[in-house]
Structure formats: C-alpha cells, structure tokens
C-alpha cells in the first residue's frame, strides 16, 4: 500500500524510539519469522544518554538494539502453533556480563521464560536470547540485563495475555450472562458464575411452650459448624437460642426460651453467611387444657330439648371445640350440637329415636389459635324415666 508511511523507526509522543518491522509491501509482516529464520536484533551495550528514559537510573549502560538506545520494541505473532521468533543477538563483545532477559516489570520481579531460549555467553559469538511470540506472549515484557538494572526498556505485543505486573491469560471463550471472570490462581482467567453456599431455613411451623427452655429442631439446608440461631419476634425483638448443635447439614438441634409470640428464625453460619425464615415459623404458646373433667357430663332425659352441658378448656388464645368421634353430633346417636366457640352442647331431641337408656361416649377436641389440640373423652347418658308402678292400697 503505497499510501502508508513505511519506516523502520519512529518516535512516540514522549520521544521514545519505537522499533517495529515494516517488511514493506503494505504494512504487514510479509515474512514468517520461524525458529530457523528468526527476526534478529543486534544487541550492543553502551552508556545511556538522555535519549534513554532510564538515563541516570540504574546502570549507566544500556542496550542498543540495532543501534537504537533502549527502544520500545513491538513484536508480533499470534498463532500458538506458529510463533514468530525474535532473536536478540548478543555476540557483540559489549554484551559481556549483560545477559538480556524478559521480565514482568522494570524491577525484574518475575522473569518471563515461556518461549524464551538463551544460548552462549553474552559478548561471545553466537550468544543470543530468542523469544517465540504467539498469542500467549504477554502484551508487555521488559527486556533487561539479568545482572544490572534499567539497561533496557519494554516490548509491546498485541496479545490477550496481559502483563499487569502479573501475567494473566484472558478467557478464550465468553461466559454467560451475569458471570464474572475468575482466576485459577496461576494467571489463567475464565468466566464463572460467582455463588455462595448460603444456608436456608425451612418454613416448618412449630409451636412450643412459652417461657421455658424447649428443645426442638430447625430444619433447612447448608448448615455447617455451630451456627448462631436467633429468634426474631414479630415485634422485632431478638432472642438467642440457649444452645445450638449441628445434627447434620439440614438439621440444627436448638434449645430456646421464648416468651409468648411468633418468631422468625435466623441462622448465621460461622462463615457469616446467614438466612432467615420467610415466615414466623416458631410460635411460643401454651397448649390448651380442659377444665371440664373427663367422664360423665350427666344423665339427660331421653328426648330432652335444650342445653345439655357446657364443656370448657383454657388457653392463651381462642379455643375452638370439635368432636373427633361421630357420636355426640350424630343424629342417630346422641343427636346433639356442639357450639365450636362456646362449648355449649344442645339438642332438640336428646338421643334421637332411642327409647332406651344409653351412654354415649365421645371425644371432644379443644384447638387453640396456634393449632395445638387436646382431646378428652366424655360421656352423656340418656335416661328414660319410669312410667308407672304398683299401689299397695
């Protein structure tokens, strides 16, 4: 391309000389620099001048590449199967004691040796350091004397391997939406889903006795270590579990003393990861208890109409009464009705069609607002009175 400026050297905006190879013929490498036919830079050593960015820094000497003092060098090569070879020839006697090597930074913290071969003794014929450049060669490398400071500069390479002070291999494939780039610890980056193994607390409702230490299980997932378990009352107040022990990854055995109320459960692992139940799953409530003694509620005249008896139970919440058997409210048996709110048992015809004394045995259940239940067995007996007798005149 005749319109493109063809130069072998050029200065950057800071006045640094940049050496790049334009092999002519249109701005692209026209020749493959194979291992047997590398691009060769002639290296010599001489005192640095102010033309070097490291003048008066480190060694007073500097490398001259193809006669240019400490230039920035641009290397090319991308196909890992076909690297381009660049040979830094140190046969010149000025190189004696100044082996040229590649590093991650000016300070030479880490030597870069991948694809780098050395041969001979600098200053002697045939001595060189050669680097094979491909897509894994870092975008920046610093060429320096392994024995002296600040004798060289750096090379550029249009690479996916970045030298940020550490060498990082960029992913070669894209990740999925929301993934992040992670390292394998050896400078290899890849896209990966970032996740934490948080615990969860199952919404399993339980009711326990209030104001006393009660042992029960909290179920969930990913429990580890000895988690901290907190009970968060619906008014926001906190109560810690008395004791917590890990049964397994899905079960915690806890003991807690909770005042009356409903509580969310928060589990915090040793790692700091935590979870809270989405519902108030623990209810501290006193179970209902019967105040009406078990057994006979009385003897009721057959065919009686009216209130038969009243049963009662106590609780710290509203109680509903029901029959678990099918006797009291069975039309073919006691033929009564049970008021679920008041416990009043009524009938319009006690015993229904029965005409003989019968004891009806049935079980009533008191259920509180928290679903706690207590059952009790009662009896009602029908009586059919005498209808006559004998007079002894």
């Amino acid at each position, binding site marked *: 391309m005749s319109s493109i400026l063809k130069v072998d050297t050029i200065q950057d905006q800071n006045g640094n000389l940049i050496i790049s190879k334009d092999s002519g013929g249109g701005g692209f490498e026209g020749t493959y620099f194979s291992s047997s036919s590398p691009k060769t830079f002639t290296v010599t050593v001489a005192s640095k001048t102010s033309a070097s960015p490291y003048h008066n820094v480190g060694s007073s000497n500097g490398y001259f590449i193809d006669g240019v003092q400490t230039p920035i060098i641009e290397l090319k090569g991308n196909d890992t199967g076909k690297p381009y070879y660049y040979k830094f020839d140190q046969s010149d006697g000025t190189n004696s004691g100044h082996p040229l090597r590649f590093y991650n930074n000016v300070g030479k913290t880490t030597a870069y040796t991948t694809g780098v071969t050395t041969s001979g003794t600098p200053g002697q014929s045939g001595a060189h350091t050669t680097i094979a450049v491909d897509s894994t060669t870092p975008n920046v490398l610093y060429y320096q004397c392994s024995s002296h400071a600040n004798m060289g500069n750096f090379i550029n390479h249009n690479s996916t391997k970045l030298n940020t002070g550490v060498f990082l291999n960029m992913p070669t494939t894209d990740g999925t939406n929301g993934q992040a780039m992670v390292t394998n610890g050896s400078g290899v980056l890849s896209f990966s889903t970032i996740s934490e193994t948080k615990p969860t607390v199952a919404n399993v409702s339980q009711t326990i006795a209030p104001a006393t230490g009660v042992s029960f299980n909290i179920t969930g997932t990913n429990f580890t270590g000895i988690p901290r378990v907190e009970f968060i009352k619906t008014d926001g107040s906190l109560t810690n579990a008395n004791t917590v022990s890990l049964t397994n990854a899905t079960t915690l055995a806890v003991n807690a003393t909770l005042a009356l109320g409903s509580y969310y459960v928060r589990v915090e692992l040793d790692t700091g990861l935590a979870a809270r139940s989405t519902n108030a799953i623990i209810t501290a409530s006193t179970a209902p208890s019967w105040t009406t003694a078990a057994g006979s509620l009385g003897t009721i005249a057959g065919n009686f109409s009216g209130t038969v008896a009243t049963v009662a139970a106590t609780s710290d919440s509203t109680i509903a009464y029901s029959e678990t058997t099918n006797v009291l409210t069975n039309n073919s048996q006691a033929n009564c009705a049970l008021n679920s709110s008041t416990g009043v048992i009524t009938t319009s015809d006690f015993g229904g069609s029965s005409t003989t004394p019968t004891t009806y045995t049935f079980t009533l259940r008191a259920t509180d607002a928290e679903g706690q239940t207590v059952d009790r067995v009662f009896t009602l007996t029908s009586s059919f009175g005498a*209808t006559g007798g004998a007079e*002894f005149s």
Partner: protein
Amino acid sequence: MATSVGRNSGSTATPTKATFSYWLKGQDSGSQQGIWGWHRGNDASNYWLGIYYSSNGSMYFNWKQSGLSVTLGTTQKFRDPAAWGHHVLAIDTTLGTAADRVKWYINGERVTSFEDSLDTISQNTTILNWSNAQDKMEIGTWYQNSSAHNLSNHSISHFHMIDGLAYDASAFGSTDSTTGEWTINTGPSVTYGNEGGFWFKDDAALTDRSGAGNNFTLDGGTLIAIEDCPSNIFACWNPLISNTGANFKNSNYRVYRTSAGNYRRMGCTIGATSGKYYAEYFLGTDQWGGVLLTSGGDLKRTEAGSNGYMGEYANDYSVGIRQDGVTYYNGANVSSAQWNQGTISSSDRLCIALDMDNKKCFLGKNGTWSSSSNPATNTGGISLGGDSYTFGAATSNADVIINTGNGNFANGNTANLISSEGANASGIGKFEYDVPAGFTALSTKGLNE
C-alpha cells in the same frame, strides 16, 4: 285386706352378698308397717330379713337367721306424702369393715345416721334367708316371728332384688346434672342371680322382668296399676294440710271424713300459677270438688279448724261444686250460670279444667263441659280472682277421689281403673275422658309442658 305379693325360694343359695333396690312412695302411719321381707314359713321365729316402718316413723332393716340377729334403724323419718324415695340396701358380709357390711342408700346418698346402729355381722356370714323352699319373699308385708306387718297406702315402682352381688345406689340411679335431683335408672346393668328379680317395672304386673322367671303371686288385696311414678309425680291430696278427721287412702288420691255436714277443704300436693291442667273426680254423696288457692283462703280456714266448703266465702276465690250440682264461687252461688249437668252420680265423673294462663276454671261431667263452656277455646267458665291454684275438695262423711292422671279412682281394694282412656294430646297421665286441647295433667312433668 292388705295387699301383698309373694314367692317362695327356688334355690338353696347362701350368698354373702345381696342388693335390694326400689322406689317407694308413702309415709309412715304411726304404726309398724312392713315393706318387704323374706321369712321362713316353717321356722318363722328364726328366719326373716326385710325392711319396715317402725311406729316412730323411722325405717328399719331387720335380719335374723341362725346365729345372727341384726337391726339397723334410721334416724330420719319418712313423712313426705308426695315424694318417691329410692332405697338401696346392699349386703356384703365379705367386707373388712363391719359397718360396711350393710349399706343403706336413700336417694343416692348412703345413710350414716342411725338410731339403732348395725349389729355385728361376722365377716363372710352367708345369707340363709332364701336357701330353703319354705323361705318366702313378700312385698307389701314383712314377718317378724309369725306376725305379719302389712303395708298400706303406699306405692312401689322398679323393685330389684340381686342375689349374690352388692351394688351401690349408682347402679340404679344418678344425679340429674341440671336439677341435682336423684333420678331413676330404668335399665340398670346388674346380674340378678338365682333368687333375684325385677318387679313393678312401670306397672303392677307380677311378672319378673329380670328374665329369671321369679314371678310373684298376689297373696291378698288388690295391686293397683298407677301412672304415678318416680319420674312423674301426680298431684294427690296433701295430708300435710292440717285437716282434723281427714283420712287419706289409696296413695292419698282418696280422702274422706266421717262428720256429716261438717265440710273441710283439702288441696293437692301440687299447685300452679300458669299452665292448663285437667282432673277428674269421683264425688261421694254431698261431697265437693273444685279449685282453691294454694295458700290462704279456704285452706287457711281449714287449717285453722274452720268448717266450710269451697266457694262459701267471698275473697277466698274458690270454686266449689257439690255432688248434686250446687256450684259456688267466691261466696256466691253460681249454679245457674255455671252448671247444667245435674247430679254427679257415683258412676259419673266430675271434670275440672284449671286454666292458669287465663285464670279460669271450667266444670263438666263425663267429658261434657257445662253451660256451653269450652276450656279448649277459653269459652265460658269461671274467672278466677287468685294467682295460684290447685285442685280441691271439701269432705264431710264420704269419699272424694281425684284422678290427676294417675289412671284410677281406686277405693280401697277396688282399683276402679279408668275403663276407656280418653284422648290426651299431652301424653301425660291417663284420664277417663278427653283432656281438653292444650291441657295436661297436674304433675311434675305436666308442670314442665
């Protein structure tokens, strides 16, 4: 002739336990009366067991057999003429506590106060009193030595004898949870044993309803079927109203005096301030029926010793109708307005409907209401000035027998059962004639209708 029933033992059993349970209505008469007992016909001076009234009104258990003579007498007296009482006598000689070997329950409560405490009964003593074919169980009489002590003017219902087991009162009754009353268990779950039985279950039949076949035979008198029972007590004449010279018979449904021309009033054991009640009367010659105030008025005069018939006095608000049809109300003769049925003969029945809801009294004879009155429609009748009434009578020298639903007009041993039961929509009580619509018997059940 005194009424009694009996049956001879059919076994040689000698148990250590026995139970007797029965409901009894009546009162002590001031003389010894046997209620029931076993006695040995050919050795009457050595074997008896039973219960009787003493002359002081207490009730006694007396048991005599070879080597044993036991007496147990209650402190309490039995003078309520209107109440049915439940008696349970449980013998269990196996018990370790001697005082427990005979337990007596009255209306569900064990009697613990005795004027004659229990004599010693050796533990495990066997009962010999129905082990011999000569041993006889009787109800309505009781033998001590060879002397029979008969029962009169009493009623018995649901008599159980248990041979071989001792039950307490709860086997035969229970306390009503609403009223607190001791009530009958008409179907006790008991084992009767060889000599046990269940008699007078709602009637006067001699049949043993236990299934053991231990039927009674009538030894004397007349056993009269009654509707009055432990579950429904019908109003009867009230002997507790002081009425000098009055005689009460047939479970107090019959009253008479023996003083010609000197009437004194009598009221029933139940009164009412509301409701509608019906009764039928047998009136002896010149005797009176009617209604009167439950307190004050004519009854007060009677208790004060004053002679007179019902309706005789103003401001007593009584209605009286004499057997010949003369009718008075509140001091005035209202015969012409209220009675057009003529004489009430011995075969007739005076019918009285007492409407306390409308404060009226209706008179009729043999089911026909007088002077175009009709209690069912509140037509006619005599308006009453008082608030609380009961059926009444005024007697001088003949009987007044009331049927408040008891089902008879018994006179001594003549049962006079109603011959053809009238319609009675309430179902309470038995009457000879139709009970007016809306009316019922004056009884404990009738009051609650």
